[in-house]
């Protein structure tokens, strides 16, 4: 792409480094900003800079936060006896949006994959153990829910964590896998369908 101005070219190049943004979209955004009042651009760059400089990660669960300890970990109505382990920050948001979970979280920041050079030391696994061990008596952790991706790496990580937790003697569960709500059996992939038959649950008509 040829640009009439070096300034536009620089702005487009920076903008198109973002995921999901190609050169054309970047150009459209840049030209849009130029048409707006100068304050719009100022507010945007201020917000981005502030985000980068002031964002914090919760010391307890490693979720994104404005304060040292995030709002979920501080929440008074939260059930402190359950910790849900997830791969990354968007997973916390996804589970929060279900409104079905009142416990706490723990964000690993990835899953174990030796090929990519990611081992337990690169993840917040030791911090999870520490957290459970050091919990005050009234906040004692009774259950850990593993909500990791249903991939080979996710499963390996779940297995590793479960083994580690064994010594701490607490309940470990993993989220159920099967047919999506509203899903047709005939369109479900065979592996999922096969597994949901193997791990079927009792049906209660009460």
């Amino acid at each position: 792409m040829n640009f009439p101005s070096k300034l536009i070219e620089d702005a487009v190049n920076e903008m198109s480094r973002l995921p999901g943004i190609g050169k054309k979209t970047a150009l459209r955004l840049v030209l849009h900003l130029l048409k707006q009042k100068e304050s719009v651009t100022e507010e945007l760059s201020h917000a981005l800079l502030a985000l980068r400089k002031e964002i914090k990660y919760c010391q307890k669960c490693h979720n994104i936060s404005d304060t040292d300890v995030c709002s979920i970990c501080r929440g008074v109505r939260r059930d402190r006896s359950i910790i849900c382990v997830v791969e990354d920050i968007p997973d916390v948001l996804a589970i929060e949006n279900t409104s079905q979970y009142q416990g706490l979280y723990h964000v690993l920041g990835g899953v174990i994959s030796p090929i990519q050079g990611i081992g337990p030391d690169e993840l917040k696994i030791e911090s999870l153990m520490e957290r459970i061990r050091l919990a005050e008596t009234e906040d004692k952790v009774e259950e850990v829910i593993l909500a990791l991706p249903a991939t080979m790496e996710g499963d390996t990580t779940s297995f590793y964590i479960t083994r580690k937790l064994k010594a701490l003697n607490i309940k470990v569960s993993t989220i159920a896998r099967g047919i999506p709500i509203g899903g047709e059996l005939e369109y479900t992939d065979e592996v999922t369908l096969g597994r949901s038959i193997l791990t079927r649950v009792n049906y209660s008509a009460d």
Partner: protein
Amino acid sequence: MHLKNIRLHQFKNYNKASVHFSEEINCFVGINGSGKTNLLDAIHYLCLTKSALNPVDNLNIKHQKDFFTVFGDFDLHGKEIEIKCIFESGKKKQLIQNGKAYDKMSEHIGLLPVVMIAPDDTSLIKDGSEERRKFFDNMLCQLNRKYLEDLIRYTHFLKQRNALIKQFAEKGRWNAELIEPYTREIMQLSKSIARMRHDFLKEYEPLLIEYYKTISGDQEKISIQYETQCLEDGFESTFKANEQKDFILRRSTMGIHKDDFVFQISEYPIKKFGSQGQQKSFVIALKLAQFMVFFKHLNTKPILLLDDIFDKLDDNRIERLMKLVADHEFGQLFISDARPERSQGILASMDADCRFFLIEEGEVTDWS
């Protein structure tokens, strides 16, 4: 099942070609380098989405062109199936069945079974165990979905485990806790895959023995010895005890990737003790048994591609092989031969519809 016609465009040494085939025997004749094998390979492409000779799609495009297409119409149980294979340099290969493109190439595999017998097949006997594992994996993957899935998982976990062992070796410290999830998967999958390989041989070996007898006229007893540690008692503890060795050698030294299929004749390995003739008969029997296994499981006779086979076999073996053809044991047959009068002599006496094609520098003409 049979292939009714094929249309090539810029495939290997062909510019444009369109050929209508016989349902029974098709013989491609022409001098060396004229494109006989390439035509067989085009059929292989339509059935298995790739070349039998060259795994790099780019190298199958005609020199100095930038794409090739191979189209063909099949008849499968009375239904017409049109397959189009399109490859443009730098783009993803496309495979289209009756106007609909496949998402994954693997979905096509198994629909149109094909067995190819080629001159370099003796590598199955002469080369290392990898060739033999590939031969059996390839067959089992087409017949058994679970095998395919298990093998994909196994390959993945093995890669992860090997990467991990390398990291341990660099740090000089083994971490038993961290490697356990991988070890566990590899042990479980090894047992499951080895069991399926073992069970498959029970079905495959009798067919092999029968065809070997037919082809060679030999009374000697042949067998396949499946060598694996994965079905032995105490496999798990041996595997664990072996981890020290893994650490020193920096890779996983046990599992189904170490299995071998040893071909034997009168209880001696054919690799060392078989004569040239015995080895040739053996590989043909391997392929014909493959043909029969596909036929039994998929309920359709695979297409049989015989590349340059008359050159490699003596008259007795050819005669016996042709007797199987005459008995209509096979479905549609494609044969390539550099000496037209020889194949004509052999095939003329058959009670079958036989069509000859003369191939000259990428041009195909009917020749009878």
